[in-house]
């Protein structure tokens, strides 16, 4: 018995030493910089079209602001006078892994704030943990409106408008540009973003183009499925002349390639809510005449747009990474700008280095200038961004030998999003009161 206890003691101590050893190295870290974890897909099918461009967008802006090399109004050095140390983290592996990693970031690596997240699944999973660990967390890309509707988060913000805006803008564009759509169907991923996108698009179409009818069998393949043979067959058999899709990541590229060879785009009009990255990545293999959105004033939609910040961003980005900035590059950069604006504001108010509470107070309801437009954190009690969203039609520019968007229409905020304190679905069902567009 005695020996038993002795042995167990030795074992537990050894185990304790094993798991306790790294504490010494991490906890003694002096806090001279503001440590920000940037989470995006670094591996898997979403890394190429979304994760890496997003990471580059954040990296570029963090470096430029730390050095003070950005144009006005962001030309001061640092974030409220503080230098940001960015660490880049992978978003793959599922929600449970992301939650575990998030806990590690806060409790083990002692980061001060977390920005990023592309998948709506990640955002929904992270927000409750952000509250629990009381850490400023700013979402960059994810789109489900459920994040703030029905939840009153204190520590979570989102600098990207949600799926209602994308869906309503899509329906508006169809009404204004394509005109006579009799029936439509959709192919969307079977998770929060895809389900919401289709649902809102369907309601918006009913309200905006009352003569059209939605399919009763829209397709919902699994996210990252990669193979869409059966879905393409089903869609081709349907009468609907328009197909809606909120596919993003590698899925949109896979779908476009598989559908092209079957003549899909000759038979159907296709509207892609978030597939602009594929237009750049696939080049000539992306069909012309497709309606494409970038979920905001980002990427290919604003490539020709004038403005000091936008031109600086495109030039510096191309110089450093050799390619054009994509949608997610803008979205991640936008989050960094929000953080910069909030920390500058908090520093000016507090007269020194701002603490977390002061930054959060400064960020609530913040209005700031993004790279190619203005953003305002107007919804979700000052936590959820609103901004204009536009669509265009793909075309090939022979002169520069690169793709471009033509017939661009950008819809202002009040046309595509509910006013403060109204739930999206109720607002849509009531035929979008206040949005006379």
């Amino acid at each position: 018995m005695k020996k038993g206890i002795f042995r167990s003691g030795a074992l537990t101590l050894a185990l304790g030493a094993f798991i306790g050893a790294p504490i010494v190295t991490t906890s003694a870290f002096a806090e001279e910089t503001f440590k920000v974890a940037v989470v995006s897909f670094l591996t898997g099918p979403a890394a190429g079209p979304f994760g890496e461009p997003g990471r580059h967008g954040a990296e570029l802006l963090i470096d430029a602001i730390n050095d003070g090399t950005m144009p006005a109004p962001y030309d001061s050095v640092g974030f409220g006078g503080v230098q940001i140390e960015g660490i880049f983290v992978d978003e793959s592996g599922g929600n449970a892994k992301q939650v575990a990693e998030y806990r590690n970031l806060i409790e083990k690596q002692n980061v001060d704030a977390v920005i990023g997240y592309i998948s709506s699944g990640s955002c929904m999973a992270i927000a409750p943990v952000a509250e629990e660990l009381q850490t400023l967390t700013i979402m960059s890309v994810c789109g489900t409106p459920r994040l703030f509707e029905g939840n009153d988060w204190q520590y979570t913000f989102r600098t990207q408008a949600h799926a209602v805006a994308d869906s309503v803008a899509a329906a508006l564009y169809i009404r204004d540009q394509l005109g006579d759509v009799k029936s439509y169907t959709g192919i969307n991923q079977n998770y929060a973003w895809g389900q919401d996108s289709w649902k809102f698009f369907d309601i918006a179409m009913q309200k905006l183009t009352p003569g059209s009818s939605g399919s009763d069998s829209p397709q919902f393949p699994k996210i990252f499925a990669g193979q869409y043979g059966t879905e393409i067959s089903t869609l081709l058999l349907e009468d609907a002349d328009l197909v809606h899709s909120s596919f993003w990541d590698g899925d949109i590229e896979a779908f476009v390639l598989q559908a092209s060879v079957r003549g899909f785009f000759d038979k159907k009009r296709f509207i892609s809510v978030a597939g602009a990255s594929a237009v750049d990545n696939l080049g000539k293999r992306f069909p012309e005449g497709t309606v494409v959105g970038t979920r905001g004033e980002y990427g290919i939609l604003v490539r020709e747009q004038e403005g000091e910040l936008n031109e600086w961003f495109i030039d510096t980005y191309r110089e450093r990474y050799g390619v054009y900035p994509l949608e997610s590059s803008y979205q991640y950069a936008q989050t960094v700008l929000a953080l910069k604006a909030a920390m500058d504001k908090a520093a000016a108010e507090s007269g020194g280095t701002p603490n977390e509470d002061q930054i959060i107070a400064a960020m609530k309801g913040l209005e700031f200038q993004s790279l190619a437009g203005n953003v305002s954190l107007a919804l979700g009690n000052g936590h959820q961004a609103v901004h204009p969203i536009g669509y265009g039609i793909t075309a090939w520019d022979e002169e520069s030998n690169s793709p471009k968007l033509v017939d661009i229409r950008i819809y202002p905020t009040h046309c595509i999003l509910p006013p403060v304190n109204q739930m999206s679905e109720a607002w849509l069902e009531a035929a979008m009161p206040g949005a006379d567009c």
Partner: protein
Amino acid sequence: MIIKALSADRTISWVVASFAILAIVGLMVPNWVLNGTMFGLARGLAVLGLLVLWRTGLVSFGHALYFGLGAYAVALLEKYTGVSDVFVRLAVALATAAAVGFMLGFVLRNHRGIFFAMLSLAFSMVLYGVLIKSEALGSTDGFSVSQTTILGWQPETKYPLFLTIILTGVVAAVGMQIYFRSALGHLTTAVRDNEIRVEYLGYSVAQAIHIKYVLSAALTGAAGGLFAMALGQVDPDSMVNWTVSGELVFISILSGPGSVAAPFIGAVAFEFLRTFAFELAPHAWQLIVGGTLLGIILFLPRGLWSLIERLPMRQERDRE
């Protein structure tokens, strides 16, 4: 009388003592270590469930079924009834898994070897498919699980949950040790060695395996429930997919079948191995984890536990 009998069993006494020491250590370590240990111990409980089968020579490649059932039972219980009490959650997780295990047991008890492994894999992938397809069950997103309460009290820290996991671990380990020492438990190795002889002795092999299977399912279900509580999130890819089953088998091999305590040591070691591998090599951490398994199989075929069997004091005792 019972206590005396229990304390005479060296394994039991030292399991209880180690967990008691771990409970004290839990007060002193930072949160992330506490979290990692909780994840490890919860997985350890699931691996203990696998061990019950392994000792009979059965390997299940589908225990994520019960792990996921336990986890989703906790999440759905909260979603539809709002209950967040730790004991209710644990009981529901355990009962759900045990009930499903009992039903599937009628099919699985007739199969051995690769057929048993593949059939259990198939059942787990059925649940995975159902979860992925169904929006009401969260599809690929899963659900968040709110913080656990204890009889209406909402603790400030994770420590009470840590204690609950430790207590569950102790009860399970001691319970399994008693079971292995019982007549029914001794059938474990007998069934593995020669089923026909066991039948001639007057025992039903099918029934013995069925009981084991339900026990194993219940333990794994409880583990899934505790894991969901510790993490605060459930989703099919991290709870029900075949990779989770593979992970549990991996930890079984890492731990070794030597003792009821081995799964807990192996699972905690695995958890921290993975955390550090992930930090050290974000793009190649699987290589480190896989390399470790290879090393264990080559040099420690009876798992990490065989290191403890080689401790000098243990050998001394064996000489006595």
